[in-house]
């Protein structure tokens, strides 16, 4: 039975990890699987980032099993040497370079501490399409970074992040602590490549991970502002305030903790994702220990997501034709997946047009 293969956006920036993941060491040949392709990442002696297909054009050996030589990489099967532009410089024992002996390279950009690669034609790579985030080196913020892998289809991760009602249920032991998240039906604003969502959760108890820090009777408001763009870049300002008395708009309580999280989800293939994320507080509201607690909690919480998403994936593969109903919390996921499908259709029709022309 043929397995259904996901089509991925090509004209799109995919996160290939944190900049610190790719060092200058002799062994720093990092390979990332992105949208079905294996991408080799390394740095030249000047620190410039190189991204190329992790496949020798001769017999397909992974270049990531090779050796760094200056700004070039040598395949350690038959010794072919490739420059940072992907051009073959040397075939040991052969005077001339055979035609086609080049490795495709990708446009790669470092921004806000992340590495971004563009899968489409490097000439069309538009850095303006990289999301706005707050990087771990930003002087106004105290942030810690992390990464996990989840065995799921990236559409399910998009749906997870486009609907935070699941905080009440999936994250009951961490971010949650009451059913308030599940009662909110936020209004979403459409963006050309995603959605923007603002709302305030009012009068909630402290989340479970911080319950012991506060009087049990203490109540809080949380102002949430999320920008979610394709393929799955989740940028959120999450401001915790003392419970105010405003019933609409932003909370009018006192700002207690100004937090910010930048999260990038990259599909590896049909059935797995790499997830790079940071969370922390503004310098102004930081206090000792808080970012370490948030860092540990964030990982615990994403392992809660991993458990439910991997269980969901198993059931979806087990019941491929079973209908799935919709509920009111599907507006965010519905909009995000609609935007994604629209862009995919656009790429498919552009491709057809090019082929015909």
């Amino acid at each position: 039975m043929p397995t259904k293969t996901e089509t991925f956006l090509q004209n799109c920036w995919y996160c290939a990890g944190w900049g610190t993941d790719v060092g200058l060491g002799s062994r720093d040949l990092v390979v990332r699987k992105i949208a079905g392709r294996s991408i080799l990442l390394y740095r030249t002696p000047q620190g410039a980032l190189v991204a190329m297909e992790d496949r020798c054009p001769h017999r397909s050996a992974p270049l990531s099993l090779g050796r760094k030589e200056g700004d070039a990489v040598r395949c350690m099967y038959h010794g072919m040497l490739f420059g940072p532009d992907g051009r073959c410089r040397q075939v040991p024992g052969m005077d001339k370079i055979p035609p086609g002996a080049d490795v495709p390279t990708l446009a790669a950009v470092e921004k806000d501490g992340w590495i971004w690669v563009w899968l489409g034609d490097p000439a069309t790579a538009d850095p303006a399409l990289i999301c706005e985030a707050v990087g771990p080196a930003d002087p106004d913020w105290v942030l810690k970074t992390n990464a996990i892998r989840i065995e799921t289809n990236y559409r399910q991760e998009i749906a997870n992040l486009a609907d935070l009602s699941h905080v009440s249920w999936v994250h009951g032991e961490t971010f949650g602590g009451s059913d308030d998240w599940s009662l909110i039906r936020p209004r979403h604003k459409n963006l050309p490549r995603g959605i923007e969502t603002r709302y305030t959760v009012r009068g909630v108890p402290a989340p479970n991970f911080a319950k012991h820090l506060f009087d049990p009777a203490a109540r809080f408001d949380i102002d949430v502002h999320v920008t979610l763009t394709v393929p799955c870049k989740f940028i959120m300002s999450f401001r915790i305030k003392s419970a105010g008395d405003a019933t609409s708009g932003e909370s009018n309580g006192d700002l207690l903790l100004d937090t910010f999280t930048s999260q990038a989800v990259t599909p590896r293939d049909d059935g797995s994702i790499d997830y790079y994320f940071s969370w922390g507080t503004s310098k102004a509201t930081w206090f000792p220990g808080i970012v370490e607690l948030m860092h540990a909690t964030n990982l615990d919480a994403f392992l809660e997501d991993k458990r439910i998403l991997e269980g969901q994936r198993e059931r979806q593969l087990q019941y491929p034709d079973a209908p799935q109903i919709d509920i009111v919390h599907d507006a965010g996921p519905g909009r995000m997946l609609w935007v994604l499908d629209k862009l995919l259709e656009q790429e498919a029709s552009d491709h057809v047009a090019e082929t015909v022309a």
Partner: protein
Amino acid sequence: MNGWISVRVAERREEAEGIVGLVLAPLPGASLPPYEPGAHIDLKMPNGMIRQYSLCGQVGDTTVYELGILLETAGRGGSRHVHEQVNVGDMLDISAPRNLFALVPGEPALLFAGGIGITPIIAMADHLARSGTPYALHYCARTHARIAFRERIAHSHAPHHVHYHFDDVPQTRLDMARVLAEADPQAHLYACGPAGFMDFVIGAARAAGWPEARLHVEHFSAPEVQDTGDAFEIEIAGTGQIVPVASGQSAATALAEAGIEVPLSCEQGICGTCLTTVLAGIPDHRDMYLSAAEQAANDCFTPCCSRARTPRLVIEI
């Protein structure tokens, strides 16, 4: 959407005065999708009419589905057709089950059934009894003769869980204030029945301060998504573009044909993906996404299924 499932009428019985029970079996070798208590299916009549009916059989039984269908003399003919024309051995088409009326797992439940509204409620009550979750079943009917599933209820439910209320026996009247006051403070309320009955039950619960999150209702046939309705116009704020919506055409389809794309997902007014701001005009809300208060505000609508009460709606894209 999903294809239709062919089923055979394996059994037809008179459940009560005016109520026919149908047992539907899959074709040989096929099975039926599992469902949760509260679920319903669409039943396609041979004349093309589509009606929603709750599944009232034993949850977990995927060898047959059971329906209870009340003859609605004032209806549009769907139930009459079943009562007069459908017999054992007939083939019918149904949809896969869908659930808009799910139990909140593990939470105590107060169940209210009005007349034929017993059909989802009986499946829920059986499930609660088997799972050991606290519950009470209040079953309101005009007369004794109109009670369905009487033996099943007597067999599966301890008498103290079940309360019958008959219109013709005043001392059995449903005292909502008392029932609500004595309920477990964590209980969720589930009601299914005719509109007047639902207004009575839900109105009483709201008046008693029950939060919306603990009130769950199913109109005894789920509201149908209808594209039919009078033609109207949509004006796009800012550009002034006018998009005519024909009778029998959805607003979303008309907008798409005019080159204005609205995000769509469920296309039946449930998920809210297409929710669009309305600046002027009054929508004819046909969705299940907005609450009654949100619908009454008339500042947004779901163009996948909702229409207009005024000749023109001005919307913001």
